[in-house]
């Protein structure tokens, strides 16, 4: 399979920024990832596609440190690194929008946007950081900027509790959180699933902007039209393993759909 990857994309691909090799992950009896290889370069959008249960979200969670891989190697700019906790990933500049969004519904928008990274007021250095007063005004200013960038017009206040927002508004907040942070890799797991037409367009624009500012972007979606619009390369997973990686310019929707549903052995002319 890796042969196919090389033929189809590897030789022409830019040097990877984040690369993983041989990722295995089992949940009890379910072997969700069976030796997956994956890479993404700066200034490119790598789409990750596959049927439901193919292992896309699991792979993203492994890259974000939310779950630890059973085995596998991580490289950042070809330097071996270890990612075993969410903090490791954040420190390496990896940000993610989870498929389930991972928001706290009991907190307001501003608090969610700064969750785990609250700005504190200066001048309380004698206290450990977790006991210094939160600079909530600064937090709101930051939140307003992040929301304004995504142009979620329907969101009236950054002080609204997330539990009272619509699914699309929540998704926008989760995206704003990942995009607003200092990062070099941004991974979005089905970020437009709950969004309207206009908001989907905003997200696609955000994705392009991230690429143009030199980020490495991973984009997961079941919408082939969106994928062919933003992606530079498309990586197909099936049953927890790699099928192949194509350059978007060299492939078609039909080819990808066949690869997703049946793999390469039948009907994929590319494999021969």
């Amino acid at each position: 399979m890796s042969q196919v990857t090389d033929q189809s994309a590897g030789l022409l691909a830019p040097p990877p920024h984040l690369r993983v090799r041989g990722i295995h992950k089992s949940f009890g009896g379910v072997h969700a990832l069976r030796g997956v290889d994956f890479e993404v370069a700066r200034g490119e959008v790598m789409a990750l596609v596959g049927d439901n249960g193919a292992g896309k979200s699991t792979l993203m969670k492994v890259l974000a440190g939310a779950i630890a891989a059973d085995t596998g190697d991580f490289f950042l700019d070809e330097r071996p690194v270890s990612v075993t906790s969410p903090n490791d990933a954040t420190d390496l500049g990896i940000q993610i929008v989870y498929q389930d969004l991972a928001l706290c519904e009991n907190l307001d928008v501003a608090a969610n946007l700064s969750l785990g990274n609250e700005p504190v007021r200066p001048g309380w250095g004698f206290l450990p950081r977790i006991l210094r007063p939160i600079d909530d005004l600064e937090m709101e200013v930051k939140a307003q900027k992040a929301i304004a960038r995504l142009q979620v017009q329907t969101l009236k206040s950054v002080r609204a509790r997330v539990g009272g927002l619509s699914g699309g508004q929540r998704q926008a907040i989760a995206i704003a959180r990942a995009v607003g942070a200092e990062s070099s890799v941004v991974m979005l797991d089905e970020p437009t699933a709950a969004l309207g037409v206009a908001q989907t367009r905003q997200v696609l624009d955000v994705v392009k902007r991230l690429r143009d500012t030199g980020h490495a972007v991973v984009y997961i979606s079941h919408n082939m039209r969106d994928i062919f619009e933003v992606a530079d390369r498309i990586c197909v997973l099936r049953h927890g393993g790699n099928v192949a990686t194509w350059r978007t310019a060299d492939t078609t929707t039909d080819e990808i759909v066949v690869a997703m549903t049946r793999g390469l052995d039948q009907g994929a002319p590319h494999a021969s």
Partner: protein
Amino acid sequence: MPANPSLSLVNRLRILRETQFGAFVPVLLALAAIWGYFGLAMPLWEHLTDPTSDGLRLIFLSPRNIYNLFMQSAVIATLAVGITVVLLLGDIDLSAAATAGVCAALLGVLMLAGVPGWLACLIVMVVGTVMGAAQGLLIAYVGIPSFVVTLAGLLGFQGVMQKILPTGNLNISDPFVRGIARVLIPDLLGILIACALVGLLAFAALRRRAQRAAKGLELDSTTALWGQIGFFTVLVFSAVLTMNAYRSVPLLIVLLIGLTALIGWVTTSTPFGRSIFAVGGNAESARRVGMDVKRIRVAAFGIVGLLAAIGGIFGASRYGSVSYTAFAGGSLLLESIGAAVIGGTSLFGGRGSVWNAILGALVIGSLGNGLDLSGASAADKLMFSGAILLLAVAIDAVSRSDGPGGR
């Protein structure tokens, strides 16, 4: 929001609850109802039905009784503040009263052995924190549900308390410890402290408003701002003046308020407090943004342990003795949990406030006090307490924006 006459009462309540201040409403209503009943309705009824009575006697609302009420509620309130912290995480602590009992008993025994009062207090505060944190370790790292761990703690610590106090009773005479409940703040100083508090709050609120305006952030309505300041002023001054009318503000109450302010500040205004709310709201999300959920749990249980120890010290000081029934074996635990829940803190985590726990403790204390005054039996007291707990939680449930059925 435009005034809409067709809004139902429930919807109005919900809108109120959405405001920062609104969380106080249900518990304040409960308190007003209890005070109105015991303070006004009952004496009025007796006066009207009994021709031999000589004038209206407002025993419940007398300064002397209100003073006692505050003192009686102080131990419950201290424990309720601690329990609120773990309720915010979505956990529960059934061992708080037993921890308080062990700490109070240890305090008595230490002082009997000649340890000075202040040192004994420090030692039991450390012991209480360790007892709480040890349970937190089992919950966070071994993964046993907090209900089970603290139930075991409840049983075990009751036994420990009986081991420390074989006779079941020990008098406390140390002047330092007794002083906590006996020392009174001079009348004038009490009023000065009240003025300072109100001034500080008003200054902070106005400065915050100016800062928000300067940063171009949305502003709360001016009426709400001044309403809050006015309400706080009335509350502080009526409390201080009432207590001054009988004796003076006791040191115990000042310590309790200070402690609550500290815990309140930590839970609402620091990254640590924010992580407590985050874990209570969605522990998996908190973990994924890099919060150390396990350490947060242990720390929260350490805080309950500390507050339980302080509650034990307060109790020993107020009763002048340590007895098994006053702490571990009595109704203190259920009253404290009841106080926290009546205050509007959710048992499912992520929602609540330590200030509400104080008000909840006043509700519980007032109920017991009022029933005592009207000569009710212990059986009546239990049944009334149950009814009030249900009523307060029901008000809370229907007034929440997600409505009944949500958590």
